[in-house]
């Protein structure tokens, strides 16, 4: 690669990632060894931030909550997959439905989460009213620590299934040669058999890819929805790791401790690195 090409093609990205991602990451790791209230000067505390993580019940709660939300990822992917299958045709109806399914992704999140809060309202909310009409008594969704998580999960599902993962699956479906569909049709496969024979082999990788993306999303996400819908409550039942880190950094102004939380979050991404190594291996061996 000649130097001019390098300067033009690769350098901007390398420099940008180094300055705006890797350098901050290193600073963040350094910060986790200090106590810093965003004002005055940081104070060196060594590993005591990390030590405190072990006694911090809130942090443990946040880990458990994050884990719960991560359980949603496969469900979300399953739903997106089915939706993409349902809407993969090129008819006008499907096209407009696809647009509709994309709406939740487009709408301003703060406004939409507040609306969802109203939908969940215990006495007067849409769901409660619907329940009353059919004689079902629903819990007080967002005020009940046991129900707040599922309530948020439903919103996440609603928001997530029509969005970009559906897009990925649609694109993947489009890559399946028509002949494969026809072949399975002529062979007499139907329903699940068709899935096993046609869809699975051709979308396997996209599913893995979406799972990896979804896992990262669940690990690092859940901030906006908690911020706008529950404020992390009730009783911190919806405080995810990222929300907790954010609150700690900016509301409580413990930047060092928040950085320590961030570093621990990064450790959770290690499985993805291993997964990548494994995937590359299996795909290589499958290809040769």
């Amino acid at each position: 690669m000649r130097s001019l090409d390098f300067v033009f093609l690769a350098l901007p990205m390398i420099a940008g990632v180094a300055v705006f991602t890797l350098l901050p990451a290193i600073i963040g790791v350094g910060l986790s060894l200090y106590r810093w209230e965003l004002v005055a000067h940081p104070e060196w505390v060594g590993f005591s931030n990390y030590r405190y993580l072990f006694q911090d019940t809130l942090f443990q709660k946040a880990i458990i909550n994050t884990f719960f939300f991560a359980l949603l990822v496969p469900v979300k992917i399953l739903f997106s997959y089915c939706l993409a299958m349902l809407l993969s045709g090129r008819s006008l109806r499907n096209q407009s439905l696809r647009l509709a399914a994309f709406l939740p992704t487009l709408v301003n999140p703060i406004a939409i989460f507040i609306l969802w809060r109203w939908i969940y309202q215990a006495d007067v909310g849409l769901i409660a009213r619907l329940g009353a009409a059919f004689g079902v008594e629903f819990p007080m969704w967002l005020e009940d620590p046991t129900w707040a998580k599922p309530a948020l999960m439903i919103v996440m599902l609603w928001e997530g299934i029509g969005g970009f993962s559906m897009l990925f699956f649609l694109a993947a479906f489009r890559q399946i040669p028509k002949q494969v569909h026809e072949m399975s049709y002529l062979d007499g496969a139907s329903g699940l058999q068709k899935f096993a024979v046609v869809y699975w082999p051709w979308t396997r990788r996209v599913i893995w890819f979406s799972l990896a993306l979804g896992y990262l999303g669940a690990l690092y996400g859940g901030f906006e929805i908690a911020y706008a819908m529950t404020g992390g409550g009730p009783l911190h039942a919806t405080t995810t790791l990222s929300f907790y880190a954010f609150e700690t950094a900016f509301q409580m102004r413990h930047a060092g401790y928040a950085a320590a939380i961030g570093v621990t979050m990064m450790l959770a991404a290690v499985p993805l690195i291993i997964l990548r190594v494994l995937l590359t291996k299996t795909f290589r061996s499958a290809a040769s």
Partner: protein
Amino acid sequence: MAILKFENVTKRFGQVEALKDFALDVGDKELLVLLGASGCGKSTALRLAAGLEQPDHGHVTLRGQPLQQLRPHDRDCALVFQNYSLYPQMTAMENILYPLRMRKVAVEEQSRRLNSVRELLHLSEAEMQRRPHALSGGQRQRVALGKALARQPGVLLLDEPFSSLDYNLRLSLRSELRRIQKHLGIAVLMVTHDQTDAAAIADRVAVMHQGKVQQVGAYKDLQHFPQTEFVAGFIGSPPMSLLPAEWDGQCLHMPTGDRLIPCDFAAPHGQVMLGLHPEDLEFDTQSNSSGTVCIHGIERHADKVLITAGIDGYRLMALSTEEFADTDTATLQIKRVAMAFDVTGKPVGPISTFQRV
């Protein structure tokens, strides 16, 4: 007896009329080849026969029964695509057995058929355990054929089964196909755009053009007695050359300036198109008389020389067995007119003997 029958089928895709009044019979135990240029609707016809598409008009009948009334499952025909006829994630054996399993064929019967297919197609046990990507192109196509045959179909539909194979493989696979077809006594409808394939194994050849069957018959008949201009210009390698002439009842005025007086030729006055076999053309570089054409190319093949010439935008191709010196112009000698067509493209008979003026 026709086992598969297209009755004036029309099939449209949006603006494109892929098939127009398409009519064809595939007889019992017959190997019929559908030949035509790219995009003429060959695959569409095959897909209709397989039930993958529904005709807009007309019917496709299988053993006299309209195809639409049968579930794809119950249809007695198997289709082999050019590519992707195998599931990449299954071994060759699993691929072959898959349609049987879907049809809930008994397990002993499955293995019986598997074995017979394996022997028929000369596939080894080891090869049967491999995935398609670990098989060579020829083996892959044999497995695909096996998958279709294991179903014991009455009609085998093949869409350009050999087009991605190289010459030697192609040669052996097509003779194998012919042997199996004879052996099992099934009907085969095969699509190809390669004439050698068609010539080599077809009982009958159907030539298609723009969604219509132009002519059906043995390859030799198509070559020697083409019924339409299209067939004349299409069949043969190289095919006939087409040259217009003005017919005034007595004399054929050629674009070369020559005039031919045919011995017996009956056609309405006006323009006629002459179909000239490559063997019936001769280019003379010595004589400097009339009938001069430009020589575009000379290709020296193993035992013959192919000379391409042009006049008035028409292309003439001649085969000669003698050496031909490089030259730019030459005189055209016509030895025989294999077939002549009137303005509507209908044949008005060959002109075997004539006088040159």
